């Protein structure tokens, strides 16, 4: 049997090893995305709506952080969580929470930078109208986030896509331990090096499907935005 056929067989027969890996991967990436949203959304909105002396350098750094190398993030989180590190007492190294932390660090700048850009563009449009309507600060922030909701969901999906596809950070802080911290990307790397191509291809198919689904959802959100918000 060819590797491709075996890969499909593993997927369709619900191979427990394969689907456990998929489940953990989605759980880790989703948790990291939600955490990144919690930090990134207010941070992006704050930078978009406030004026302070070092604002432009902050924006440049934030945009640069979108391209953070995952292995460097993995190394930094590893150093922080290792026994001798400042967070060593938490005992999280080589556990799924460590992987969530690493991915959160990777995804937060993406969500914060895209939120900043989206809110700032909208604020440029709304500023004078809001001034004439005497819109207060709190109502202003809520209105901007609400009116930008479709674009912000797209930013969140971009963050999830980045988390789901990354391998460098989680392999360092997770250790790729079978049945515990092994995810789709780390498994693909390992199984390919071992020559176990059917499992690697099966996982690859799932990963590609997730990426396609995310993009389809992002496209749907954009269409919904055009339809319902104009």
């Amino acid at each position, binding site marked *: 049997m060819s590797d491709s056929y075996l890969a499909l067989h593993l997927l369709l027969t619900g191979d427990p090893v394969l689907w456990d890996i998929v489940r953990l991967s989605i759980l880790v990436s989703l948790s990291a995305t939600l955490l990144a949203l919690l930090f990134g959304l207010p941070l992006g909105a704050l930078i978009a709506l406030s004026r302070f002396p070092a604002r432009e350098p902050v924006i440049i750094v934030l945009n640069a952080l979108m391209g953070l190398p995952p292995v460097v993030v993995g190394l930094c989180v590893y150093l922080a969580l290792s026994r001798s590190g400042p967070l060593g007492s938490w005992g999280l190294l080589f556990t799924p929470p460590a992987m969530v932390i690493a991915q959160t660090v990777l995804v937060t700048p993406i969500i914060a930078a895209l939120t900043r850009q989206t809110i700032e563009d909208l604020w440029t449009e*709304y500023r004078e*109208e809001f*001034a004439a*309507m*005497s819109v207060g600060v709190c109502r202003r922030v809520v209105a901007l986030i609400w*009116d930008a909701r479709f674009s912000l969901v797209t930013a969140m999906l971009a963050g999830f896509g980045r988390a789901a596809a990354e391998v460098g950070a989680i392999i360092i802080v997770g250790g790729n331990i079978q049945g515990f911290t092994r995810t789709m990307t780390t498994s693909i790397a390992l199984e390919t090096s071992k020559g176990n191509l059917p499992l690697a291809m099966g996982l690859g198919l799932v990963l590609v499907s997730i990426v396609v689904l995310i993009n389809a959802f992002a496209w749907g959100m954009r269409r919904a935005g055009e339809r319902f918000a*104009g």
Partner: protein
Amino acid sequence: MSFPAAASQLPVVFEDVQVRAGAVVILDRISLRITAGPPTVLIGPNGSGKSTVLRTAMGLVSPSRGHIRWVGAGATDAIRRALVFQRPVMLRRSTAGNLHFALATAGIRRQHRRSRAIELLRLVGLEAVADRPARRLSGGEQQRLALARALARDPEVLFLDEPTASLDPEGTKAIEEIVRALALRGIKIIMATHDLSEARRLAGEIVLLHRGLVVEMGRADTFFAGPSTPDARRFLAGDLLV
């Protein structure tokens, strides 16, 4: 037309107002007294400072020199002034959603917003498109929605910045009818336009501006019958003021 009693915030008095943007003087030595009554229409060529007068009176632009004083009894009630821009920005919501936001901002209680929104949509003739995204409305409809949003503040003074500038005759007629109806309700309309025909149709009082200066101000019928300054005569004759 007859007009009801004076709005309590008026008159608004410009005292030697100057507005600068860097080295450029946009308004200079503006001294005006705008009282309650029929619409006051600011006319003048492009760049004469009409919009800046409205924005300064609304408090969106600060004078570099001079003062603007609202000297009526209700002068502190700034919420009851509203401005409609030449190109109003529609929020990314439905027509009704835009109005609900304006009503909430104006401090209208949640339970009263729905009925008030319906009332305002009816007033501007937009009930049929209440659920349509505001950004999909035509230019004339957007302008009417902007008027309804402004009316959510229940204004005593309504500033209109070239509200028909980019509209077809039908859209212009609809806006002018609303403006007349509002004036008859006792709302003081202070409006900028470069359309002399529109000024003739709506104005009770005219202020002619040129290069940031007031050239002439007075009753509309007197102004159009015989302007007293050479610049005003040239403007009415259709000559370019440069």
